[in-house]
């Protein structure tokens, strides 16, 4: 209820030019976040229909440091790698998954990528829990729906989910689940958990 159902595929944005005959799909995106080496790229790869691509996103310092006058980037120039994959859900709907580095010094890039995302999956290695703190903090602050997914590297959980939830101190509505980043079905199900959480919120707000 609430939002007026838009007539089917036209749910996509405002075409600023109608000259093109080819109608692109509605692009939606989700973020897969977490610390270094927790399995973000693995998770993206597990569900993506393409090999995850790595692009370089420049961050604020680059933009500020390079201008027409002085073309020398400052020492602060930072280029960060961002992995992404995609899934064509139907001809009119394409889901992009962006894996973002977990360190909070990449705050700018997170905004760049997370703006307009449906939700986020924060991937956690329970042996290095504090690696995910910046991500959890970030999505809480941003008010973006997210779920915490504990990667079961060897098929078993090092710590019970309750303990993880307690240590992360996330609110009750935030799903905390175990998943296997290598397993397509497992990653898919985790993304659905995020989306159902997002949907519940959207319905409540409607």
């Amino acid at each position, binding site marked *: 209820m609430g939002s007026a159902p838009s007539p089917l595929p036209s*749910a996509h944005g405002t075409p600023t030019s109608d000259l*093109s005959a080819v109608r692109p799909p509605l692009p939606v995106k989700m973020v897969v976040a977490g610390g270094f080496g927790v399995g973000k790229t693995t998770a993206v790869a597990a569900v993506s229909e393409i090999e995850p691509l790595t692009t370089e996103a420049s961050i604020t310092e680059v933009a500020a440091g390079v201008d027409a006058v002085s073309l020398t980037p400052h020492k602060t120039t930072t280029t960060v790698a961002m*992995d992404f994959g995609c899934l064509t859900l*139907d001809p009119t*709907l394409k889901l992009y998954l962006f894996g973002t580095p977990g360190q909070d010094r990449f705050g700018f890039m997170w905004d760049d990528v997370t703006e307009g*995302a449906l939700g986020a999956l924060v991937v956690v290695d329970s042996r290095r829990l504090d690696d995910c703190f910046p991500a959890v903090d970030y999505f809480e602050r941003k008010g973006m729906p997210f779920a915490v997914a504990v990667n079961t590297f060897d098929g078993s959980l090092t710590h019970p989910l309750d303990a993880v939830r307690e240590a992360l101190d996330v609110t009750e509505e935030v799903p905390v689940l175990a998943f296997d980043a290598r397993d397509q079905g497992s990653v898919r199900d985790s993304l*659905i958990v995020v989306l159902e959480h997002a949907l519940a919120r959207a319905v409540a707000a409607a």
Partner: protein
Amino acid sequence: MTPQGGRPDPARPRREPAGADQGVERASAVRPFMVTEGRVAAEAGLPVETQVVATAEGLGQIGALAFERKAIVEACGTPLSLAEVAVKLRLHLNVVRVLAGDLRASRLLAVHVPRAGTASDIDVLRRVIDGLRSIPTTVGSRDAD
């Protein structure tokens, strides 16, 4: 054993990451922005998933274009996201944003900016959930919670 608890003060300096997540081949830091004549922020608002596709006019004028602009129009015979264009052409995302803005202004590229509010659109969320549920998964992992 419980994992160490308590999130630290977000203001606390974090340890330096080992570069970006994965090593990535670096594009030149300077040349891409020469391509844009130093402009960096003009189209900063375009989301990374923004779909761009060549217009008939753009395809018709390919011969008259050069370098990156030509490459973008060529690559966008079918719709691509800005992120995909960046990867394909090995350009910074922000460079692609600026050039896509230029090409749009000269009507050679259609830029479909995602509608604001899509993320909390109930119908969209339902469609994505249904879409994910119906993707065929490889055999095996039903027991994963």
